[in-house]
C-alpha cells in the first residue's frame, strides 16, 4: 500500500517535471510576436501578388497552353507528400509498438496538419476560376481523380487534426493550472479545449480506443491521398506520367520528404525549446535510420521508373529521358538524385552522420531535393507532347516561373510555417502524459529488476 502511494507520488513528480519542461516555451512572448509579425508582413506581400493574379488571370504566371501545370501543382504534390509522415510515425510505427516515437509523434502530427491544411489552398491558387470552387461540390463528377483527391485530402486533414487534438487532451488538462504568467486568453483556451478532462481511468480507456481507431483509419487514408495525387498524372496518356508504379513511387518519396521535415523541426525544437532530455541523440539516430530506409525504398522506385523506359527507349520516352539525363533539366535532375537521395543514403549509413547537426543538414538537402523532384515530375513531361509545338510565341515552349508565381508559392510555405509556429508555440510539442507514462513504466521495470 505504501509502495503504491509512493509510486503515485513519484508518478506525479515525473508528470510535473515533464510538464515544466514542455511548457517552458509555451508563451506569447516578444520573440513570438516579432516572428509572427514578420511572417504576416511577408504573407501580405505574397497575398498582394495573388491579388494581381486574381485580377489579371493566370497569364501572370509562366504557364501557357502546353506547360499548363507548373510550380503550384509541384508544390501541391510536395505538401501532400510531406504531410504523410504523420501517418508513418504515429500510425505505422505507433501501432507496431515502437515506444521511441512517442516524443516525436506530436511533431509529426503538427507537420501533417500544417501541410495537409495548406495543400488544398495551393490547388485553389492554381485554378483559372477560383470563384467557381463551389462547383466542385455542386457539380462534382466522381469519374474525375480530382474529386477523389478532394475527398481523401480533406479526410486525411480531419483525421490528422483529430489525432493531434485527442492526444493533446490530457496535456491540456495537466497544463491548464501550470500556466502562471501566461496571457489570460491562452489559459482560457486551455481550459475550454481540455473539455473537463479529469484523468480518470475510464477516460484514458476511451482515449486509447479512439487513438487506436484513428491510427488504423489514418493508414489507408494516407496511402489513398498520395496514390490519388500520383494518379492526377498517371491517368494521362503522356510519356513520363504514363506509369503503373506512380502510386508507390510517390508514396515512398513522400516519406522521404516528410521524414526530412520532421528531423528539421526536431532539431529546431530541441535547441530552441531546450528539449534535449526528450529529443535525444538516440531519437535522431533512430529517425536517421528511418530516413535512410525510406530513401532506399525511394531509390529503388526511382531505378524502376527511369531504368526500365531508359532500356527500351521508346520514341517519346527517349525524348523525355534525354531532357532529364543530359538535356535542359540534367543539372536539376542529377542534383536531386545525387544530393537529395544517393549521397544522403550513403552518409546515413554512418552513425556520426545521424547525430543532430549533420542529420539536420542532410535533411535540408533532402527536403530541397524533394521539392525539386516534384517540379521535375510535373514540368518536363508537358514540354514534349506527342504532337510538335508550332506556330506559337516562344514563351509557350518553355516554362519559366514568374516572380508573382514564386511569391504565391512562397505564401503557401509561409502559411505552413505559421500553422507550425502556432501549434508548437501555444501548445506543448512533446506529449507530456505519454512521455511521463513512458518514464514511469521504465522506472517500474528497473525497480522490479532491482528487487
Amino acid at each position, binding site marked *: 500500500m505504501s509502495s503504491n502511494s509512493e509510486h503515485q507520488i513519484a508518478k506525479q513528480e515525473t508528470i510535473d517535471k515533464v510538464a515544466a519542461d514542455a511548457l517552458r516555451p509555451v508563451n506569447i512572448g516578444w520573440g513570438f510576436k516579432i516572428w509572427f509579425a514578420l511572417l504576416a508582413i511577408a504573407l501580405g506581400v505574397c497575398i498582394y501578388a495573388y491579388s494581381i493574379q486574381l485580377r*489579371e*488571370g*493566370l*497569364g501572370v504566371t509562366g*504557364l*501557357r*497552353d*502546353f506547360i*499548363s*501545370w507548373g510550380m503550384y501543382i509541384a508544390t501541391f504534390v510536395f505538401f501532400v507528400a510531406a504531410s504523410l509522415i504523420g501517418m508513418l510515425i504515429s500510425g505505422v510505427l505507433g501501432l507496431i509498438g515502437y515506444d521511441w516515437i512517442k516524443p516525436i509523434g506530436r511533431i509529426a502530427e503538427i507537420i501533417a496538419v500544417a501541410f495537409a491544411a495548406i495543400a488544398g489552398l495551393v490547388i485553389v491558387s*492554381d*485554378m*483559372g*476560376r477560383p470563384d*467557381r*470552387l463551389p*462547383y*466542385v461540390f*455542386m*457539380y*462534382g*463528377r466522381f*469519374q*474525375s*481523380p*480530382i*474529386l477523389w483527391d478532394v475527398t481523401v485530402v480533406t479526410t486525411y486533414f480531419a483525421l490528422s487534426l483529430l489525432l493531434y487534438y485527442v492526444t493533446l487532451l490530457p496535456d491540456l488538462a495537466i497544463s491548464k493550472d501550470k500556466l502562471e504568467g501566461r496571457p489570460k486568453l491562452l489559459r482560457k483556451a486551455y481550459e475550454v479545449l481540455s473539455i473537463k478532462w479529469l484523468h480518470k481511468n475510464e477516460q484514458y480507456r476511451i482515449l486509447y480506443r479512439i487513438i487506436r481507431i484513428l491510427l488504423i483509419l489514418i493508414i489507408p487514408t494516407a496511402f489513398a491521398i498520395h496514390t490519388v495525387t500520383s494518379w*492526377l*498524372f498517371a*491517368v*494521362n*496518356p*503522356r510519356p513520363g506520367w504514363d506509369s503503373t508504379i506512380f502510386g508507390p513511387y510517390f508514396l515512398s518519396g513522400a516519406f522521404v520528404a516528410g521524414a526530412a521535415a520532421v528531423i528539421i523541426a526536431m532539431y529546431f525544437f530541441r535547441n530552441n525549446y531546450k528539449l534535449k532530455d526528450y529529443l535525444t541523440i538516440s531519437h535522431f539516430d533512430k529517425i536517421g535510420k528511418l530516413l535512410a530506409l525510406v530513401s532506399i525504398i525511394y531509390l529503388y522506385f526511382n531505378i524502376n521508373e527511369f531504368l526500365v523506359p531508359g532500356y527500351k527507349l521508346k520514341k517519346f520516352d527517349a*525524348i523525355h529521358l534525354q531532357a532529364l539525363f543530359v538535356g535542359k533539366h540534367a543539372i536539376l535532375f542529377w542534383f536531386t538524385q545525387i544530393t537529395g537521395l544517393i549521397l544522403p543514403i550513403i552518409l546515413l549509413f554512418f552513425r556520426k552522420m545521424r547525430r543532430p547537426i549533420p542529420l539536420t543538414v542532410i535533411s535540408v538537402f533532402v527536403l530541397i531535393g524533394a521539392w525539386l523532384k516534384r517540379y521535375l515530375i510535373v514540368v518536363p513531361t*508537358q514540354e*514534349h*507532347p*506527342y*504532337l*510538335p*509545338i*508550332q*506556330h*506559337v*510565341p516562344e514563351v*509557350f*515552349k518553355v516554362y519559366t516561373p514568374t516572380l508573382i508565381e514564386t511569391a504565391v508559392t512562397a505564401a503557401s510555405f509561409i502559411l505552413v510555417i505559421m500553422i507550425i509556429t502556432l501549434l508548437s508555440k501555444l501548445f506543448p510539442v512533446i506529449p507530456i502524459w505519454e512521455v511521463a507514462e513512458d518514464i514511469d513504466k521504465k522506472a517500474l521495470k528497473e525497480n522490479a529488476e532491482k528487487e
Partner: protein
Amino acid sequence: MEKEQPQKGENQHEDKGAQSRRDFLKKLGLIGTASVAGAAAMYTGFHYEQSKGKGDKVKVLTADNKLVEVDKSALKDSKPSLEVFQERGREGIPGKRWVMVIDLSKCRNARQCVTACQSAHRLRPYEYHINTLQIQETENTPPYHMPKPCQHCDNPPCVSVCPVDATFKRQDGIVLIDNERCIGCRFCVAACPYSARMVHWQEPRYAKQDKGKTYDVELNVPQKKGTISKCLFSADQLRDGELPYCVSACPNGVFYFGDENEDAVTNGTTKETVRLSKLLRDNGAYRLMPELGTKPRVYYLPPKNRIFDFPEKSILDDTDHA
C-alpha cells in the same frame, strides 16, 4: 401560311415576331376606332394580345428538323437564352454522328482554316482551335503539313478527368466545353494527347466588345478568362445546316465533313459529296495515335502524291519538331 414556314435558327423567330406584330397592329387599330380613349384601347389591346390566337396554329421547324404545329400564342419573339443554349448544346443534334476527313495530300499550308476559325471564335492569332503542323515521322520519310483540330474522340480522356462536367461528349459525337461551368483546373489540357485545348490565360481578345452577349456553348463566344477553349466542329454551323468554318474556308479541298450515319461527307471546297466508307477505304485512311484507344472522329488520308512543295531538307532536327 405556307410561306411563313421558317427555314431555321434565328430567322424563324424574327419572321414570327414581325408577323405577330403586324397582326397585333391590325387588330389594335380596329379596337382603337371602337374605343373612346386611346389609352383604354392600348390596355384592351394588351389583353387582347394575351388572349388572341387561340386555335390559330402555325407550322414551325424544330432544331431537330421536325415539322410541328404549335399554337401561335406559344411563340415568343426572343433569342435563345443562356439556358436554352446550354441545354441544346449539351444534347447535340439527334441522329447525327459528325465525322471529319482530312486529306493530307492536298494541304499546302494556306492556313485559311486557322484564320477562319479564329475569326469565328474570336481568338488571337496564336490561340488555336485548329492549327497546322509540320510533321515528319522519320529521317527517310518526307515532311508534310497536317491540319489538327480537336479529334472529338469517342473515348475522350479530357471528358473523363473533368471534375465538374464542364466538358462533355454529345450524342452527335462532338466534344464541347461549357465555359459557364469550367473551373480552369486544366486537367483536360494535361489529359489530351493531341494538345487540342487552349487556355484563356488573360482576358480574351474581344472581351470588351463581346460583353453582354449571351454565351453560346456551340460557338464558345464570348470566350472567358480563366477557362478552357477548344475546337467545337463548329456546332453552331452544323445546327444551321452549314459546314464548319475551317472546312468551308479551305481553298485546297483538304477537308471533308459529314455524318457517319449517312455514310456521306462533303468536301468543303468543291462541295462534292462522297461516300465516307469508300473514301476511307480507297485512300488508306488512318486516325492519330489509335494505340491510345481514344477513338478519334477525325480521319486522315495519307500525304501520298502530294501536290505541294516542301523544303527538301529534313525538319527532324528543328527545335519545333520534338
